[in-house]
């Protein structure tokens, strides 16, 4: 018989069916469409119903309030802000304050956490016990109490502005740490360019040194050259083109200092409380990660003649990072969300300024809370995306 064999269905139809409906095929697709339609209808009903009821009660709704004048001031703002700016600008100010304290807090907490974890694993009995005590104490006390403690302790220890402690033109008092503000001068552009060139050259040098190490086995100590490039080049430019910065020195006038930039005690207290609290959790996560690496790795490294520190740095911790990263991401997200406790000590973060003052002035709870929660969701998603990317790169370099 010379019948041609039956052609299989074209691949793309099969792939389309799988992509749209999963293993259930066209039936699955129909169910998904129905489910999505129901969800959309429910969402629409909620929004429409809420809007109708708000209208009946004559409660203002909608996002038009964002254009109105805020009419109040905040104590710290990374962008220029005055009382006559809009609520949308207030939102931005609060958001930047939250991001500032979260980013710096994440960084500091990670450093402290790693150190405490390594301390707890140290063969030194006293160091291990002290680190253990730190973890047990800090993670068992509520964060709000720790925050109030740091705030009141910081405030209580510092003198008033008229009796502030002066160090090198900076003043420390219970109004904050006031440092001289750098004002840009003529030599700023060449200085910046020299710095950029120095850093780029240092990176090129590092790449070259690693290449030499992996291909030829030559270990070149590059740190003198790096220091020379990153510090020396800008220094040379400062000498040639003039100082890059002038200093605006703070002066006590009346009640407070004028001039200079100020680090408010609320920021410091919030940062310290968040970092130490999250560091206790991070320490346990890191310790778990390190313990998850087989003891044979450490023994093998030691038997090769490497020191404990080198084995940890080059062999154990890179393998431990795979276990550490997901819970570590959790802790970063917790830190970001815990920064909303700032409202209890008067730090103008997003919740305090926008979901606090702006909400009670405009009364539009639904819109403001939706915006605030949306922003926190966005921050969390960005953080976990960054950590996922880091984990992916790590996995790639480890060959998994």
């Amino acid at each position: 018989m010379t019948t041609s064999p039956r052609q299989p269905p074209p691949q793309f139809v099969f792939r389309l069916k799988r992509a749209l409906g999963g293993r259930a095929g066209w039936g699955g697709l129909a169910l998904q469409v129905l489910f999505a339609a129901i969800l959309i209808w429910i969402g629409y009903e909620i929004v429409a119903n809420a809007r109708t009821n708000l209208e009946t009660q004559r409660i203002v709704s909608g996002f038009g309030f964002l254009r109105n004048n805020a009419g109040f001031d905040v104590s710290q703002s990374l962008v220029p802000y005055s009382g006559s700016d809009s609520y949308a600008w207030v939102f931005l100010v609060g958001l930047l304050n939250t991001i500032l304290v979260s980013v710096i807090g994440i960084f500091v907490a990670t450093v402290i956490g790693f150190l405490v974890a390594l301390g707890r694993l140290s063969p030194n009995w006293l160091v291990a016990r002290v680190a253990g005590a730190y973890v047990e104490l800090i993670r068992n006390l509520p964060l709000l109490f720790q925050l109030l403690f740091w705030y009141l302790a910081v405030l209580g220890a510092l003198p008033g502005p008229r009796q502030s402690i002066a160090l090198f033109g900076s003043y420390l008092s219970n109004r904050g740490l006031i440092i001289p503000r750098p004002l840009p001068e003529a030599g700023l552009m060449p200085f910046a360019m020299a710095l950029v060139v120095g850093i780029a050259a240092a990176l090129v040098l590092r790449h070259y040194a690693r290449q030499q190490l992996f291909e030829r086995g030559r270990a070149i100590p590059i740190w003198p050259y790096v220091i020379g490039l990153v510090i020396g080049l800008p220094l040379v430019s400062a000498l040639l083109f003039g100082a890059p910065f002038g200093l605006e020195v703070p002066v006590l006038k009346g009640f407070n200092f004028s001039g200079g930039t100020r680090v408010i005690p609320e920021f410091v207290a919030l940062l310290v409380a968040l970092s130490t609290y999250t560091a206790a959790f991070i320490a346990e996560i890191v310790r778990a990660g390190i313990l998850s690496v087989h003891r044979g790795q450490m023994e093998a490294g030691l038997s090769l003649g490497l020191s404990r520190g080198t084995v940890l740095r080059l062999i154990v911790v890179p393998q431990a990072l795979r276990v550490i990263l997901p819970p570590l991401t959790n802790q970063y997200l917790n830190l970001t969300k815990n920064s909303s406790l700032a409202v209890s000590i008067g730090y103008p973060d997003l919740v305090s300024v926008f979901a606090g003052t702006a909400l009670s002035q405009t009364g539009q709870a639904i819109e403001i809370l939706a915006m605030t929660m949306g922003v926190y969701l966005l921050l969390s998603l960005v953080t976990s995306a960054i950590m996922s990317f880091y984990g992916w790169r790590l996995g790639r370099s480890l060959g998994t």
Partner: protein
Amino acid sequence: MKRVSLFFTLAVAAGFASQAATAETLKTVKDRGQLSCGVSTGLPGFSNPDDKGNWTGLDVDVCRALAAAIFNDPTKVKYVPLSAKDRFTALQSGEIDVLSRNTTWTLSRDTSLGANFTGVTYYDGQGFLVKKSLKVNSALELNSASVCVQTGTTTEQNLADYFKGNNMKYEVIAFAGQDETVKAYESGRCDVFTSDVSQLYAERLKLANPADHVVLPEVISKEPLGPMVRHGDDQWFDIVKWVLFAMVDAEEMGVTQGNVDEMAKSDKPDLKRAFGTDGNLGEQLGLTKDWFYRIIKTVGNYGESFDRNVGAGSKLQIARGLNQLWNKGGIQYAPPIR
């Protein structure tokens, strides 16, 4: 998921709860058997719980008068302590029937919040509290000072307006709770504490050395404090309004808690109308004929309530000032009960 469910709950609350609350508040309160009254979290003189959990204060007396008028029992009130941030949401959602929480009457609050103010319990203004050691005699000397405020109140905006209007610079630190604000002021974090003058007197009592602090003479804003009810229920609005007016009218007519029994038997036409002997004004409101008697018997008139809570008979010792009756030098004026 957390964000979706909270949003869902909020939206549903706005969607469904408000329907039950409009136009039927009196019936709801009577069915419940209890008045739900929004008060502060603890402000001496206005709404403050003592160590046994009994609430006293000028705002509390308004709620007690309301409960007496409706139930003939001033204890049938549930007090819901609210911070400055969530007081309006509680009223909008129907959690409370009346908000009696030293809230300033402003246009934006009267319109965009879906609520109405029923009257003025206390004519107040915003002032400044400073330490005597700073040797400041006037608010105009406060250039570049640090000021502690409680967030979520009219205080922040008034402060911004005042300093901007006088070309003075300042640093503002805004706290969520009144207690943290006062503690920061006491620790020296800020030079000035600003709030309504009545609250300054009340909070000064809580400080370690009240005599070391002085309230500056400037009153930089008008803060008429009064009760709030939701839009859409005119009968309830009238009831809350006239309960307060009854207290003020009683003082004007000379009716006190002590002499209310004999005054009830008086032949004077205005007293007969008020006590219900003549006509049925109480029933027109939706209350009983003896509504006026119930109110004055349990809470006393406005002057007595004032003295007991914030005036000469209390620890605050605030003078009547603007809150005196209109024919005695103040501006408390209630329409006639007829």
